[in-house]
């Protein structure tokens, strides 16, 4: 089933910051790669893609081979190419950095190879093995499940993904900054994974439409790739009412729902992580009159990436540090007017028309309860073996944000792939 997105969405106003290379650009960049032995970029990649090899294949015009090299290690190499923080992973490890030269633009080359090789009309890159008779149910259609399901399907195992939303793709569809990846690009990747033999059922919620006991009975294994829950609230006075959004909910609405044609006024973003920086940049790019990030510690303590914060600064985002929210202020009609914060023992009011809360997401207690033996740790994350995703229930595996509390897409892909490999081995 092909998902159709509304034509007019706010996210489409934000253009790609790193557009697709032309063939000549890709070759010129690929030619710069030194083809290091035992390359540090490979070790810096959570999925350990053989980066020098895929780059050399672009240099020799073997784009199909390049894409296969990528997909063999990372089935979601296309979205990872666009959303990975390459500056702190592969590109950050490039030996050119030690030479004080511009490192190889690995993300852009990876996008070039994967996008070119999966274009309509191109011959299939892989042939799936004949049916093995094994069946796996996967909960949540995010990167962890997609990677796991895709690799299982290639080995001939039936893989069925259940997704409660109307769209598959998980955070790639609902949460990635639009100047990196638009929702339709994520859905394009989902369709490609489906083409390997994966079945995706949307609008299917665990505990409502499907139940753990049924899945455990009907399938050989169950994979939990459910991500994180709803945005956390501050629980301070004035929080109930219009104008206050959870950051991920706001981003999802901006990416997937028809544009409201709304004018963003003064925006406050509470938090110092990557989601906070993302939503701040997106608001600034969508024309907010003023965007201010409010963070309770100093700038050095922020968990968001330095290069992302630099980008936000360039787009006009201000940063207020050491500020703890105390209360929201509203006028007589209930309209949001400001956020009172405590800064170094004094209190001040930051005027605003909208606030996005990027202070974390809740964990999935209800999901775990469906599967006997699956436990949660103190943070509310599912307890799983990081090498293969095994949980306290021998039939249940898990990976991605729901076991690590929120990391990169590429980490989720690595988790899903590792579980698929583990199952394949144990079924041999």
């Amino acid at each position, binding site marked *: 089933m092909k998902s159709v997105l509304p034509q007019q969405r706010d996210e489409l106003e934000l253009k790609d910051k790193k557009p697709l290379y032309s063939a000549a650009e890709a*070759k*010129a960049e690929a*030619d*710069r790669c*030194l*083809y*290091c*032995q*035992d390359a*540090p970029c490979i070790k810096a990649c959570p999925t350990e893609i053989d980066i020098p090899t895929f780059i050399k294949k672009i*240099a020799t015009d073997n784009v199909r081979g390049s894409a296969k090299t990528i997909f063999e290690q990372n089935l979601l190499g296309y979205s990872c190419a666009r959303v990975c923080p390459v500056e702190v992973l592969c590109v950050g490890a490039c*030996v*050119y950095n*030690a*030479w004080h030269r511009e490192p190889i633009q690995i993300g852009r080359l990876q996008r070039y190879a994967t996008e070119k090789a999966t274009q309509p009309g191109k011959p299939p890159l892989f042939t799936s093995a004949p049916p093995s008779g094994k069946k796996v149910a996967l909960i949540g259609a995010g990167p962890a499940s997609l990677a796991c399901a895709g690799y299982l399907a290639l080995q001939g195992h039936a893989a069925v993904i259940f997704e409660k939303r109307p769209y598959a793709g998980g955070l790639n569809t609902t949460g990635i900054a639009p100047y990196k990846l638009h929702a339709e690009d994520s859905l394009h990747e989902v369709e490609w994974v489906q083409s390997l033999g994966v079945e995706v059922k949307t609008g299917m919620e665990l505990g409502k439409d499907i139940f753990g006991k049924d899945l455990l009975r009907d399938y050989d294994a169950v994979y939990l790739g459910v991500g994180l829950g709803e945005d956390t609230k501050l629980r301070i006075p004035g929080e109930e009412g219009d104008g206050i959004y959870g950051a991920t909910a706001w981003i999802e609405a901006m990416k997937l729902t028809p544009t409201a044609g709304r004018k963003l006024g003064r925006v406050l973003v509470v938090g110092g992580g990557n989601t906070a920086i993302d939503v701040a940049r997106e608001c600034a790019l969508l024309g907010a009159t003023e965007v201010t990030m409010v963070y309770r510690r100093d700038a050095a303590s922020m968990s968001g990436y330095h290069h992302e914060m630099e980008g936000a600064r360039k787009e006009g985002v201000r940063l207020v540090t050491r500020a703890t929210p105390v209360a929201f202020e509203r006028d007589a009609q209930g309209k949001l007017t400001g956020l009172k914060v405590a800064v170094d023992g004094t209190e001040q009011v930051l005027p605003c028309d909208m606030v996005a809360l990027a202070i974390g997401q809740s964990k999935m207690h209800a999901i775990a309860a469906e599967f006997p033996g699956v436990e949660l740790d103190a943070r509310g994350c599912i307890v799983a073996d990081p090498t293969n995703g095994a949980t306290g229930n021998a039939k249940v595996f898990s990976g991605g944000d729901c076991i690590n509390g929120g990391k990169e897409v590429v980490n989720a892909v690595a988790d899903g792939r590792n579980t698929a490999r583990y199952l394949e081995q144990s079924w041999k």
Partner: protein
Amino acid sequence: MADLSIDFAGIRSPNPFWLASAPPANSGEQVMRAFDAGWGGAVWKTLGDPIVNVSSRFGAVDYAGQKVMGFNNIELITDRGLEVNLREIREVKKRYPKHAVIASLMTETKEDWKVLIRRCEDAGVDGLELNFGCPHGMCERGMGSSVGQEPKLLQEITAWTKEFAKTPVLVKLTPNIGDILDPGIAAVKGGADGLSLINTIKSIIGVDLDRMVPEPRVGNASTNGGYCGPAVKPIAMHMVASLARDPEVTIPISGIGGISNWRDAAEFIALGSTSVQVCTAVMHYGFRIVEDMIDGLSNYLDEHGMTSVRQLVGRAIPGFREWGDLDLGYQIVAKIDANKCIGCQLCVAACQDGAHQCIFTGPNDQQRPPHAHYPGTAKAPRPQILGTQAGDRVPWVDEPECVGCNLCALVCPVPGCITMVETSNETGDTWNRRVQEGRDKVPGGIHE
């Protein structure tokens, strides 16, 4: 400042840089602009009966982002009428009397050579260059390289031209031959006043894998062409040096083949060229490149205490020896500068897979390499060196095992990071001496 002027078999030129007979020397207008840019001479694009060319006619090899490493063409001699060319030659010589204008010639019968030479000399050329090199199109008609590949024929035609010519005759040689000495010495015997080499090498530059047609494509077909450009320089230098070393070759040589800058030119001159001819580099970048060629050669001569370019001619020839006269005791080993190393480990890949397995990574990699050239003499490898930039990715060299082959230094992308350091100087022990003294058998051979 050093004197760059030369006298090539009586042809005088303000500097040794000539345009080779090719598209850049196709018309008076081009040659005059070249002289204005600083070129000392031009060998006019080959004259003869005008031909009809094909389209397209050029192809190139690019390598790792570098354009036109190698170049080929299937263009023939001039497609302009003889009278037009001669009128322009006359005009050029009138305006530029001190520059060298040499007519490249190609024709068939003795009578044709006679007429062609007379008309060119009447137009005022300073010399003649016989095109016995063109490897495509003309050779099938019995000219060009088909003459250059037949020493007897070459000698005979050279002798004809010497009967008619009042100006110096240069013979341009083809490299498409087993030993360049054969046509070179034939030219000398035929009475040539000078040699020019190399002409282009017979080649197929590429194949269009979608259309399944070689390149450059003429409709749905192609043919072999002549290869030139930076890629052919080593072949050309070998052939120039071969002739320059031979005692029978007593005439000057004009060096051609991949010369793109003053350094290339200086190398050709050091190997025995008196003048150098340039084509592909001009086709790539234009006449303006000669400014640096003149300036660079001049500075080089000044810095090395030479007052004229003549002093450089053949200077590297005594440094050439046959393999059997090379010193077997001289030894160098690789040293990696840990502070410059960026940790790409290309030297490790090259040494392990392509050379002698003496470069290693990591502190635990202490095992002996899989072979030792002199078993039992190897010492333990040096402790690992930590670099400032590349950290523990800096490789280390097991120096007793290093054979000094150079490969690591050649593949290292960082200038000055890997140097080859002398560990013993020349000993005078050569293969030829070993043979003389009966020490030429090394243990481990066939009869042991």
